[in-house]
C-alpha cells in the first residue's frame, strides 16, 4: 500500500527585479521538478481529507465538475474507493478522464450505513462508526 499525496499546483511567481542570479537558478530548478511532479499527479489524483468525530468518520474529496451519474463510492472492509469521471470542458466529444482513489478508513465503520453528498464540487462521505460493544451485566442465579 502506497500513499501518493496530492499536491496543489503552485502559483509560479514571475521573475522580479532585485533578485540575484542564484534565485533565478533556484526558481528554474524548482520549476523543473514541479513540472514533473504535476504532470504525474494532476490527472488521476484529487485531494482527500479525513475527519473524525464521536460517531462518524468523514471523508471529503475535492472533485470539481464531475459527472454525478458516474460518481461512485464503494467500501470493502476498511478500504473506501471513490471513483468519478470528468469530461474535458474544452472538448465535449472527448472521452471522459476517470479519477479514482482508495483510502484506508482509520476506524471500523458500518458499511451499509454509509452516505455521500456532492455539493459545490466537493464530495462528503459520512461513515458511521461501529458502536462499541457495551459491557452487559448478566445475573446468574445460583441454586
Amino acid at each position: 500500500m502506497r500513499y501518493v499525496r496530492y499536491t496543489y499546483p503552485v502559483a509560479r511567481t514571475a521573475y522580479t527585479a532585485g533578485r540575484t542570479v542564484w534565485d533565478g537558478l533556484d526558481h528554474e530548478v524548482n520549476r523543473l521538478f514541479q513540472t514533473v511532479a504535476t504532470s504525474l499527479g494532476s490527472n488521476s489524483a484529487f485531494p482527500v481529507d479525513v475527519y473524525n468525530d464521536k460517531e462518524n468518520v468523514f471523508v471529503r474529496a475535492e472533485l470539481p465538475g464531475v459527472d454525478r451519474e458516474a460518481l461512485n463510492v464503494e467500501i470493502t472492509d476498511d478500504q473506501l474507493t471513490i471513483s468519478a469521471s470528468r469530461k474535458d470542458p474544452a472538448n465535449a466529444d472527448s472521452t471522459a478522464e476517470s479519477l479514482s482513489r482508495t483510502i484506508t478508513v482509520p476506524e471500523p465503520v458500518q458499511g451499509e450505513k454509509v452516505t455521500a453528498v456532492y455539493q459545490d464540487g466537493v464530495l462528503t462521505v459520512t461513515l458511521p462508526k461501529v458502536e462499541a460493544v457495551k459491557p452487559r451485566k448478566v445475573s446468574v442465579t445460583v441454586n
Partner: protein
Amino acid sequence: MALLTSLLPSFVREPAVTEAETDTIRPLYQVQELEDAYKVTTQLPGVTKERLTITDEDGTLTIRGERSWKQPSEWSPVYRETAQSAFALSLYHDNVIDADKAQAELKDGVLTLSLPKSEARKPRKIAIG
C-alpha cells in the same frame, strides 16, 4: 561584524521569495480560443457564488474564490491534503476582451467564463479607395 557582512553580503541578504509564502492557491485552469470569444474554465472546488469575485482592471482579469465550508468544531482532522487558502488567479489579457459582455457560470465547483473578443481587436477589411 560590519567588516564581515561587507565581505559576505549573503549574511544580510533578504531570503528569496519562495512560492510557499503565498497565501493563495492558483487553481487549475484552461483557456480556449473560440471564433468570437475566449473561454476560461477554472476548477474551484468548495467555492460558492457568494464567495467568488471576478474583477477586471487595467487589462488583468482576477478571479478570487474562498471556500465556504468550515470545519465543524467537533470534527477533528485525521488526514488532510486540502488547504483553507483562497483560490486566486490573475490573467493578463491586454484588453483583447470586452469585459462588459463577459458571462460567468459556476456549477459544481467549476467556473466557466465567456469573454467576448473586443470589437476593436477583431480583424477587419480595409477598403482601398
